C-alpha cells in the first residue's frame, strides 16, 4: 500500500513537471507569436492603419471632427444621454487615461477634453468575443463591423476597455437630421463604432475627421511604413496609448 502510494506520488510529480515544461514551451511560443503579430513593421510590406492625436494643438470647444464624422456616417443624435451613439467624442483626461502610470500630470493637460475613438487595437478583445464574426479585424488592421451580421448581443461592448462602442436601443433613422445617402444608417439592435473611414480609404481619401480638423491635430497613416508622416511623428515625439497594461495594442497614439 505504502509502496503503491509512493509510486503514485512519484509518477504524478513527474507528470506535473512534464506538463510544466510543455506549458512553458507553449506559452513561450504563444508570446513569440503575439509579438510577431504586432511587430510586423520590419517586413514593411503590409499595412496597419494608425492615428496620432496631438492634443497640444486641439482647441477646447471645437467639435468639427466629431460633427463631420457623425454626419458622414449617419450617426443619430438622441436627446436621452442613455441612448447616445458616438464614434468620436471628447472626454475627460482622467477617463481617457485612468492608468496608474500617469502621475503628476500638468493641470493644463488634465483640464483638456481628450478625443476618444475606437483604437483599432492590434489585439482587439471585441473581435475575440463576437459570436457571429460581425466584428472582425481586416488585413490592414482596421477593426471593422459587418452590421449585417450583428445580432446585438453586446458582448463586444463589455469586452472593449475603452467604451468605443454604442448600441442602438432605438430606431436611429428618426434621430438623424439629414441622412447622408452614401453611407447606410443602422437598425435598432445593432452596435456601431468608428470604422477609420474604411469607405473613404477605399477611395484614397483620408478619414473625415483628419481632413476636417483645422489644426492638424490628427495624423493618419500606415504604421508599417517607416517613411510615413505618422511614423516620423511617432519617432520625434513621446506618445502614449490608452490602457497599455491591457495588451490590446492600440493603433491610436496621443501626444499630450
Amino acid at each position: 500500500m505504502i509502496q503503491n502510494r509512493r509510486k503514485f506520488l512519484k509518477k504524478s510529480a513527474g507528470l506535473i513537471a512534464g506538463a510544466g515544461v510543455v506549458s512553458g514551451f507553449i506559452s513561450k511560443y504563444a508570446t513569440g507569436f503575439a509579438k510577431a503579430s504586432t511587430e510586423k513593421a520590419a517586413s514593411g510590406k503590409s499595412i496597419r492603419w494608425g492615428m496620432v492625436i496631438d492634443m497640444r494643438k486641439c482647441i477646447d470647444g471645437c467639435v468639427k471632427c466629431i460633427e463631420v464624422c457623425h454626419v458622414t456616417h449617419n450617426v443619430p443624435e438622441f436627446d436621452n444621454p442613455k441612448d447616445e451613439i458616438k464614434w468620436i467624442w471628447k472626454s475627460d483626461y482622467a477617463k481617457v487615461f485612468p492608468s496608474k502610470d500617469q502621475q503628476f500630470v500638468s493641470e493644463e493637460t488634465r483640464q483638456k477634453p481628450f478625443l476618444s475613438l475606437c483604437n483599432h487595437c492590434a489585439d482587439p478583445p471585441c473581435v475575440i468575443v463576437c459570436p457571429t464574426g460581425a466584428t472582425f479585424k481586416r488585413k490592414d488592421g482596421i477593426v471593422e463591423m459587418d452590421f449585417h451580421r450583428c445580432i446585438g448581443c453586446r458582448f463586444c461592448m463589455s469586452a472593449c476597455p475603452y467604451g468605443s462602442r454604442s448600441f442602438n436601443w432605438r430606431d436611429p433613422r428618426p434621430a438623424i437630421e439629414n441622412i447622408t445617402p452614401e453611407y447606410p444608417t443602422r437598425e435598432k439592435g445593432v452596435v456601431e463604432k468608428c470604422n477609420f473611414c474604411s469607405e473613404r480609404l477605399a477611395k484614397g481619401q483620408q478619414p473625415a475627421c483628419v481632413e476636417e480638423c483645422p489644426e492638424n491635430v490628427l495624423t493618419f497613416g500606415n504604421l508599417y511604413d517607416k517613411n510615413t508622416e505618422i511614423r516620423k511623428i511617432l519617432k520625434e515625439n513621446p506618445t502614449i496609448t490608452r490602457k497599455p497594461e491591457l495588451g490590446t495594442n492600440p493603433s491610436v497614439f496621443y501626444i499630450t
Partner: protein
Amino acid sequence: MIRKVPRGSMMNEKPLIFAGLAVFLLAFSYPFWQSTEDEDIPQIAMQTKGEECVAPVEYMRKNHMKLLDIWRDSVVRDGDRFHIMPDGSKVEKSLTKTCLDCHISKEKFCEECHSFASVKPYCWECHVVPKIGSHTELSGIDDVEENKQNLLKNLLARNKPLAESKQSLNKGGQ
C-alpha cells in the same frame, strides 16, 4: 378472434376512396401547377443608362439576391469594392450606387416584383434609397425635375408593358 371484412363492400368503396384522394391531391398541389399568367408578372423596369447589366439579364432575374450577397461580403469583409464589367470597365459593388443608378426607381424596379412575389428584403432598413434626382446622369444639369421626367419617358418607351402603370405616375408628376 379475427373478423373478416366482406370482400364485396371493399370493392364498392374503391372508386370513392380514389376520387377523394384525387381531389385531395389536386387541392394540395394547386399552388404548384397553377401557373401564373405571363401578363401578371410585373415587367422589370429596364435600365435607363449604360448598355449592359453587371451580369446577364437571365442570371440577374433569378439570382440577383445571390449576387448582392456576394457583393456585400466582398465589400464589407474583403474590402473589394469593384465589379469588373464584361467590357473591362469598373463599377462599384453597390445596390444604391450601381443598381439603382441605372434602374432609377426603387418602387418600380424592386418593389413591384417583390410585392408580387411576396418577399420582403430588409435592405432599406439601413441603406438609403437614392433620390431620383441624385442620378449621376443628372449631375451638373440644372433642371433636375425635367430630366427626371425625361428619364421616366425613356423608361416608358423601352418598357411597354409597364406603360399603363407608369402613366398614373406621370400624371401625378405633371
